C-alpha cells in the first residue's frame, strides 16, 4: 500500500491533534462543589468494582478512536501496491493515443506515462517477471513480446511515439490481451488517462491494474462528426465541470458555417447540417481554449461516388449502376470521347479503338476488336465459377446465357466464370488498367433479371475503382477494427460487404468513436482529485464503509450502556 499522500498526511495530523486534545482534556467546565473526596472515592469504586462498565467504556473509546483512524484512512485513499509480483507474465500497456497529448501534466501526459512505464518496467523485471509492451490507441497492438531484458524493454518504451490519429480502443486491447494470456492470469498494467474497467467474468484470465495519468480537465470539449447521406451529423460535447458556450465552425473552404452552442456541464448536443454543393473536404472545429485541443477539430473527406461513363444503349444497365450508388453518364458508342470525365468506364457491345486509361468493364466486346478477339461462339454454355471474392453472394445457379463468344484472353486476365469452350467472365489487368470482361451479351441472358446482377455489378465496379476486393482475407491488424468504427464511419453502408472499405474511405482524423470517448471522459470526472501518476484507488470505499460501521456500532454500544445503567 502506498500511504504517502498529502491528504493522508493531513488526516494523520488531524488525528494526532484529536488525540492531543483528548489527552489534554481542554475546556472542562469548572464547578465548585462542597467536597471532592466522595467523588474521588466513588470514581475509584466505579473503576474497581464495575470492571465490565470500565471495559465497555474502554471499548467505546477504542471504537471511537478506530472510527477516527478509518475516517482518516478513507480520506487518504491508500493505493494498492503494484510490485509484489514475482515470476509472472505481465503486460505493460502504454496509451499513446491522442488524448495523451494533453498538457495538464508537464510536459504532457504521454511523457509522464512513459516515465512511469520505465519505472514499472524496472520494478517488474527485478521481480523476475516477463514483461511485454503494448500500445493502446485506436488499433492497439503488441509492441514488444514478452522479455526479461530491461534494455530492450526500455528501448521499446522510448521508441513508442504518440499517435495523433485517434484515441483508444480499450475493448480491443482487452480482447487481445486475453488472447495472449495462457494458463496463469496475465497481469496487465495500463498507463492511460482513463481507468480501464474489467468485470470479473469478462476476462477471468486478466489481472488488470489501471494507472491513471492525467488531471481532470477544467475546460474540455470535443467534436465528432460523420456523414449521413446528404447531411453532416455533428456531435459537440462539453465535458467541462461548468457551462460553456462553444462556437462550432464547419468550413467547406468557401463559406464557413458558424454556430453558437451554449452547453451545460457534461452536456452533449447533436446537430444535422445539410451539406450544400460537393465539397471534397470539410473542416469541423470548435474554437474555444481547451487543455486537450486535439479533439476540437477534424477533417471529413467527402468522397464523391465514382462517376461511371456507360458507353452503350441499355437503359437497364444504367439503372442498375445508379441503384448501386454510382453517378452514371451514358453516351452512345459514336459519342464516346476519351476526354469525357469519368472514374470508371463501362462498354456494352462496343470498344474504342484505343484502350482507355481508366479502369473499364467490357460487356460483350464486338467481334473483330483488337483487344479481346473472339473466334466463334458457343451456344448455351455450361458454366462453372472459380472461387473468387468478386462472385461472392452472386447466385449463379439460375444464370443462363444463350450464346457466348469464344474469346482469347491475355495472360493478365484471370478467368472467373467459364465453360468448356470459352471464358464468360474474367478480371485482371489490360495494359496496366483494371479490366473486367463479360463475354456474352446481356440481352441474350437472364442475368439482368436475377437478384445476383446488382450484387455482381456493384462488386465489379468497386473492384474497378481500386478498392481491395470485398471479403478478401484482411490484414492481421485489420481484425482489430472495431465494428463501432466501421458503423460510425461507414455512414450507413450495409455491414458485411463494404463496411471496411467504407470505413477506410471515410477515415476521420482526430476523433474517436464518440461513445467510447464519452465513456473515457466521464471516467476523468470520476477520478477528480487524482494528481499525476496514480494507481487506481479502491480502498477508500471499503474504509469508508468500515468507518460508518464502526461509528454506528460505537453509537449503538453507548446507547445500550445508557439504557442498561440509567
Amino acid at each position, binding site marked *: 500500500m502506498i500511504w504517502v499522500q498529502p491528504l493522508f498526511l493531513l488526516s494523520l495530523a488531524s488525528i494526532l491533534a484529536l488525540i492531543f486534545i483528548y489527552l489534554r482534556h481542554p475546556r472542562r*467546565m469548572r464547578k*465548585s462543589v462542597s467536597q471532592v473526596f466522595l467523588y474521588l472515592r466513588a470514581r475509584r469504586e*466505579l473503576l474497581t468494582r464495575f470492571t465490565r462498565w470500565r471495559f465497555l467504556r474502554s471499548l467505546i473509546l477504542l471504537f471511537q478512536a478506530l472510527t477516527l483512524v478509518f475516517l482518516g484512512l478513507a480520506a487518504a485513499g491508500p493505493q494498492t501496491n503494484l510490485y509484489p509480483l514475482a515470476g509472472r507474465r505481465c503486460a505493460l500497456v502504454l496509451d499513446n493515443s491522442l488524448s495523451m497529448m494533453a498538457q495538464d501534466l508537464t510536459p504532457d501526459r504521454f511523457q509522464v506515462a512513459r516515465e512511469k512505464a520505465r519505472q514499472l518496467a524496472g520494478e517488474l523485471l527485478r521481480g523476475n517477471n516477463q514483461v511485454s509492451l503494448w500500445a493502446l490507441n485506436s488499433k492497439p497492438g503488441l509492441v514488444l513480446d514478452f522479455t526479461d531484458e530491461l534494455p530492450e524493454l526500455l528501448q521499446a518504451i522510448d521508441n513508442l511515439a504518440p499517435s495523433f490519429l485517434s484515441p483508444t480502443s480499450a475493448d480491443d486491447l482487452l480482447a487481445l490481451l486475453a488472447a495472449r494470456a495462457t494458463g496463469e492470469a496475465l497481469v496487465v498494467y495500463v498507463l492511460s488517462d482513463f481507468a480501464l474497467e474489467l468485470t470479473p467474468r469478462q476476462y477471468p484470465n486478466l489481472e488488470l491494474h489501471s494507472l491513471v495519468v492525467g488531471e481532470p480537465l477544467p475546460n474540455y470539449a470535443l467534436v465528432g462528426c460523420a456523414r449521413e447521406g446528404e447531411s453532416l451529423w455533428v456531435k459537440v460535447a462539453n465535458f467541462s465541470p461548468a457551462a460553456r458556450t462553444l462556437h462550432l465552425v464547419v468550413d467547406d473552404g468557401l463559406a464557413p458555417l458558424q454556430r453558437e452552442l451554449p452547453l451545460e456541464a457534461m452536456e452533449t448536443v447533436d446537430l444535422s447540417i445539410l451539406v450544400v454543393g460537393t465539397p471534397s473536404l470539410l473542416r469541423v472545429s470548435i474554437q474555444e481554449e481547451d487543455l486537450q485541443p486535439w479533439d476540437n477539430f477534424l477533417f471529413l473527406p467527402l468522397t464523391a461516388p465514382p462517376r461511371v461513363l456507360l458507353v452503350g444503349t441499355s437503359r437497364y444497365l444504367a439503372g442498375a449502376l445508379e441503384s448501386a450508388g454510382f453517378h452514371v453518364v451514358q453516351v452512345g458508342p459514336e459519342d464516346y470521347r476519351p476526354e469525357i470525365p469519368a472514374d470508371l468506364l463501362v462498354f456494352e457491345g462496343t470498344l474504342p479503338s484505343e484502350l482507355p486509361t481508366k479502369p473499364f468493364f467490357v460487356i460483350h466486346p464486338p467481334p473483330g476488336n483488337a483487344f479481346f478477339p473472339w473466334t466463334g461462339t458457343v451456344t448455351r454454355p455450361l458454366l462453372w465459377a472459380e472461387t473468387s471474392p468478386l462472385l461472392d453472394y452472386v447466385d449463379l445457379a439460375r444464370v443462363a446465357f444463350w450464346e457466348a463468344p469464344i474469346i482469347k484472353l491475355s495472360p493478365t486476365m484471370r478467368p472467373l466464370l467459364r465453360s468448356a469452350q470459352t471464358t464468360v467472365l474474367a478480371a485482371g489487368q489490360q495494359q496496366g488498367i483494371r479490366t473486367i470482361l463479360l463475354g456474352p451479351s446481356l440481352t441474350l441472358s437472364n442475368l439482368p433479371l436475377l437478384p445476383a446482377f446488382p450484387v455482381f455489378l456493384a462488386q465489379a465496379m468497386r473492384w474497378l475503382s481500386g478498392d481491395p476486393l470485398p471479403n478478401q482475407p484482411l490484414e492481421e491488424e485489420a481484425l482489430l477494427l472495431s465494428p463501432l468504427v466501421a458503423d460510425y464511419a461507414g455512414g450507413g453502408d450495409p455491414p458485411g460487404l463494404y463496411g471496411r472499405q467504407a470505413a477506410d474511405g471515410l477515415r476521420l482524423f482526430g476523433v474517436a468513436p464518440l461513445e467510447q470517448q464519452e465513456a473515457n471522459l466521464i471516467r476523468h470526472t470520476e477520478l477528480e482529485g487524482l494528481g499525476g501518476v496514480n494507481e487506481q484507488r479502491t480502498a477508500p470505499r471499503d474504509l469508508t464503509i468500515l468507518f460508518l460501521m464502526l461509528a454506528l456500532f460505537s453509537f449503538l454500544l453507548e446507547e445500550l450502556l445508557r439504557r442498561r445503567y*440509567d
Partner: protein
Amino acid sequence: MPPETALFPGFSDLFLRRLSLLRFRPRPGIPGKGAGEHLVRKGGASVEFSDFRTYTHGDDFRLVDWNSYARLDRLFVKVFRDEEGFVLHLLLDRSRSMDWGQPNKLLFARRLAAALGYVALSAYNWATVQTLPDELTARGSASLFPEHRGRRMIPELFRFLRDLPTGGACELGAVLAEYARKHRQPGLLVILSDALSPRGIEGGINRLLALGHQLVFLHLLAPDEIAPTRAGEFELVDSEWGDRLEVSLDRFSLRTFAIFFERWRRSLQDYCQSRGVLYFLLPTSLSIEEVVLHRLLQRGLLQA
C-alpha cells in the same frame, strides 16, 4: 411584633410563639446548671413528688409525711424532684463547604440554630453557640456565643447568628475533640454540620460522648449533594480545601455517585445510632418550621 422577628426576617411571629411553647427533652442524667424548668432526679424543692426516705437528723420537719407516721409510727420525709436548667451547646459548622448549595446550607444552619437557641433561652436554659472553625474571623467578630440564659438574651443570640461570617476550613472530627477538651461541663450538644470532612468525625464524637454529653447530630445537606443531576465534563473544585478533580459525569456515574453518597451517609447515621447520638438527616430543601415543629418534635428532642 417581637424584636426577634426583626432580627431574623424568616421567622414569623406565629413561628416564634410556637417555639416558645416547646421545651427540650434532654436525656435524664444530664447535669443541670442553676434553677430552671428541667426536672432532675435528685431531691429538690419542686412540687414534683419523687420518693420517700427515712427521716434522718436535721431533715426539715416540713417534709415529714405525718400520715405515714400515724399509720406506721415511723418518720418518713417526702423527696421532691429538683428543676434545673441545662446547657445547650450548639456547634455550628460555618466552614466554606457549608456555604454551598441551593438552598444554602449555612443559612439553613443559622436559622435552625436560632430556632433551637430560642427554644432553650425561652425555657430559661443555658445556651451557647460555638462556630467551627473556632478561630477569630478576619473582621474580629467572635466565633463563640458564650453561655447565657433567659429570654433577654435571645436578640443577642440572633444578632450573633445573623452576623456570623463564613469561612475557614476545618477537620470536623479534630475540632469536636478540641471542643470536648475545652468544655468539660456535660450538656445537650447539638452539632449542625454537613460532616464533609475527609478524615471523618467519629473521633470527635467519641471524645464528646466520653464527657457525658448528650449528642444530637443535625446532618445538613443540599439536595444537589445527595443526588447531583448535572452531567458533563467537569473540573470539580472543593470549596473548602481547594482540591481539584477532573471527572466525566454521565448519567451512570452520577447515579453511582448518588448511591455511594447515600452509603456514606448511612454509615454515618449507623455510627451515630450505635453510639446513642440522635441523628437527623435534614435536606436544606425543608423549611425550618417542618424541621423544628415536626421532625425534632416527633423524634422526641423537643416536647410541647
